[in-house]
């Protein structure tokens, strides 16, 4: 039998907090990865999957350290090597593809120089040869204009292309092992397909082993040979992809699988008056950025002739790819970006386009929850203060009453009360997003604009958040405008769906019809691009190349 590329034995990673307390992050994990094999690490945020993946590079984040175990990568024990020896393997024997390619490239240098940098650092080949190899990789990764794309700068290519370029960067030195850290999480579904296909074919051709970190089971189903399910720093179950997906044994794996099952949405019991006033009524809104031109339209027009309404107690999904204007729509409704023309009415009363002219009560009733909890929470404020402010600001709560309400809110979003003294940077991505939501709930709103709030969350947590949103809706007669690129999320919570493309609404339909009854070609493309929990889905997927080319900017 051939020697495995990765032999991880009883890995232990510990951290020391600033008060000197010891925290066990990884509690003895062992697995092997064979040559040419792709192992997926799945688990919720905080389960240690990224820590394990980084340990394969002999790297731990600040404050953590590898306290025991053996990390054999291609015969070298990364735990025992000196820092200089580790550095000689990073990028050469084992390389890393980060989640956000946009943050991983230097914006001031041409792409090709950055792609071949690893070859230069490790002195494995002359620059000319490296360039040729890079162009070959670009071709293998199905990048357009492989000969010249390397001369461009990072801002001149799309997100999907950048992610594939970062794969080329990782593969230039012919590593034995590539670590993928959620590389498609930030991409649109139609782009994700292309990137996954490129990854898969390149890895297969080169016979390279991989470790793929993700929380998206459907992606895992397409790309992994084996899956390790992690929770709280321990492997719960490890097995072939087929076995994990179809015959999970561990209760946690079962829970994970059931969370992923698309849940049909059952609308909240609606006994509405015959002619109810819509909670939100948007009429012929045009909005954009930049100075206003001759026809009173902004220079960069994002939203074009948007009209829709939202009935009380109902939820509206807005789907579309990045750049389709769906987040701008939320900003226009919230008053952050006053529309150039058009009306926005809330419960029959017209809202002033600019939020500075809206009343405090109007502001309270519409809350917006942003996509990136990292930037949406003030990094220097403890959680208790972040949640306490809207309570004080809108409801005048003080002292004990405010504290009690903060505890209630934390309880609502299933977080321990002790978290109130922490800073956002001390929480996991999922926990931060729950705080983000709790802050909106603190205002007691009637309409919540959710901008991709579950796209950074794990399936289990996202499912729990969706359940929570539904529960709150029943109790508080809330309405949600749910912006997402994840169709199954929209399916789980929305009554109706708006499909947006390049700032226009191309179609509105009841969610139930989305899978089969979409009329517009773009809606159909979007629906067919959502990965399914089927290992053959990607290989069998047939999409009309003309429509794909027409609607996606690859």
């Amino acid at each position, binding site marked *: 039998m051939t020697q495995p590329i990765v032999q991880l034995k009883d890995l232990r990673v510990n951290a020391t907090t*600033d008060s000197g307390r010891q925290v066990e992050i990884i509690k003895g994990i062992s697995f092997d990865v064979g040559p040419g094999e792709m192992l997926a690490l799945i688990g919720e945020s905080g389960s240690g999957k990224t820590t394990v993946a980084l340990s394969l590079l002999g790297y731990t984040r600040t404050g953590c350290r590898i306290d025991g175990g053996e990390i054999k990568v291609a015969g070298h024990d990364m735990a025992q090597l000196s820092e200089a020896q580790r550095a000689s393997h990073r990028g050469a024997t084992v390389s890393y593809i980060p989640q956000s390619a946009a943050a991983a490239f230097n914006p001031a240098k041409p792409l090709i120089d950055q792609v071949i940098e690893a070859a230069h650092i490790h002195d494995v080949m002359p620059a000319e040869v490296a360039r040729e190899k890079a162009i070959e990789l670009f071709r293998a990764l199905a990048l357009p204009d492989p000969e010249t794309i390397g001369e461009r700068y990072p801002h001149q290519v799309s997100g999907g292309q950048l992610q594939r370029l970062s794969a080329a960067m990782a593969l230039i030195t012919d590593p034995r092992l590539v670590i993928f850290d959620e590389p498609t999480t930030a991409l649109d579904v139609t782009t994700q397909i292309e990137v996954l296909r490129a990854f898969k074919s390149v890895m297969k051709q080169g016979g390279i082993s991989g470790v793929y970190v993700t929380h998206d089971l459907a992606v895992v189903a397409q790309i992994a040979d084996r899956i390790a399910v992690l929770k709280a720093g321990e492997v719960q179950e490890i097995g072939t992809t087929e076995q994990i997906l179809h015959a999970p044994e561990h209760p946690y794996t079962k829970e994970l699988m059931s969370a992923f099952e698309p849940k049909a949405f059952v609308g909240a019991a609606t006994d509405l008056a015959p002619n109810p006033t819509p909670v939100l009524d948007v009429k012929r809104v045009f909005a954009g950025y930049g100075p206003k031109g001759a026809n009173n339209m902004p220079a960069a027009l994002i939203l074009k002739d948007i009209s829709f309404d939202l009935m009380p107690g109902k939820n509206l999904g807005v789907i579309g790819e990045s750049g389709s204007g769906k987040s701008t729509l939320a900003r226009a409704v919230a008053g952050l970006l006053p529309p150039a023309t058009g009306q926005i009415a809330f419960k029959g009363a017209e809202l002033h386009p600019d939020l500075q002219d809206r009343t405090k009560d109007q502001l309270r009733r519409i809350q917006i929850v942003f996509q990136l909890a990292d930037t*949406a929470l003030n990094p220097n404020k403890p959680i208790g203060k972040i949640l306490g*402010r809207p309570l004080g600001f809108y409801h005048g709560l003080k002292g004990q009453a405010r504290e009690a309400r903060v505890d209630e809110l934390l309880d609502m979003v299933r977080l321990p009360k002790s978290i109130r003294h922490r800073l956002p940077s001390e929480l996991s991505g999922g926990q931060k997003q729950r705080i983000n939501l709790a802050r909106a709930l603190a205002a007691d709103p009637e309409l919540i604009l959710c901008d991709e709030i579950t796209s950074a969350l794990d399936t289990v947590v996202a499912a729990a958040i969706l359940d929570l949103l539904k529960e709150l809706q029943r109790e508080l007669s809330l309405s949600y405008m749910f912006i997402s690129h994840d169709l199954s999320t929209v399916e789980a919570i929305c009554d109706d769906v708006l499909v947006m493309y390049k700032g226009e609404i191309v179609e509105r339909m009841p969610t139930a019809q989305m899978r089969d009854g979409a009329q517009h070609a773009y809606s159909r493309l979007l629906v067919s691009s959502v990965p399914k929990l089927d290992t053959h889905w990607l290989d069998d997927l047939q999409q009309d190349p003309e429509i794909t080319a027409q609607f996606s900017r690859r």
Partner: protein
Amino acid sequence: MTAVTNFIARKSGYNINLVGLCSATVILFWAIVALIAPMITPYPVGEIVDWDYFGPSSSAFWLGSDYLGRDVLSRILMGARFTVGISLGAVTLACFIGVTLGMLAAVIGGLFDQVLSRFLDAFNSIPSKLFGLVVVAAVGSSVPVLILTLTAIYAPGSYRFARALAVNINTMDFVTVARARGEGTLYLIKEEILPNIIGPVLADFGLRFVFIVLLLSGLSFLGLGVLPPNADWGALVKENISGLPFAAPAVIYPSFAIASLTISVNMMIDNLPKKIRDRED
């Protein structure tokens, strides 16, 4: 010493390191000296008490005597009042005004930002010594005039610095969330922006403090600063500079005083106590 820092950490909930503790001690020492100086000076500041000039350290004159035979120790102790007091007052005012305006400009933006920025840029272009000269010539030298003049000289730079930092923070989502909530400008700058720029702002504060100490001694040298017989530390160095060939303590000790204060201020700002986040509650 780690026992001391550990003890402080346990009692206060703040982590403090040794360098921070030492520099804080030095600053506290000079602050106390500045307060009680008249009570502890062994000789009157202006009186010639030694027959010798540039005299060495002796039991009568601990730090020697200066170019006129005055007691250096007494002059340094009294000089602490001027150096610490004027510089600290000026730097505090300059940074308070500069940082507040800078954050306001970033948050309000538009015309307010444009006008304020251009005005302060213009102000910044006036040479600082020349400006000091004109002001002192016009209204005469006194401690309040010196503080206000130094403030006017150093506030525009502080404004530029704070505005550049605040503009970056202003684009973050959490500021947008606070705006969408309907928060006022004061809340935005105080709660959302300031805590996120306070580190660099304090470092700037320390640098500016050192600049002000130096400019103050420059002004004193020109006879525009602290009026004789009093002198700040910068003036003490300048007036005794001719003692350098004689290795006179009169020129060494005031320099040590300046160095100990300015370095300590910078070290303390780089090593401010950090709150311990991991607490069991």
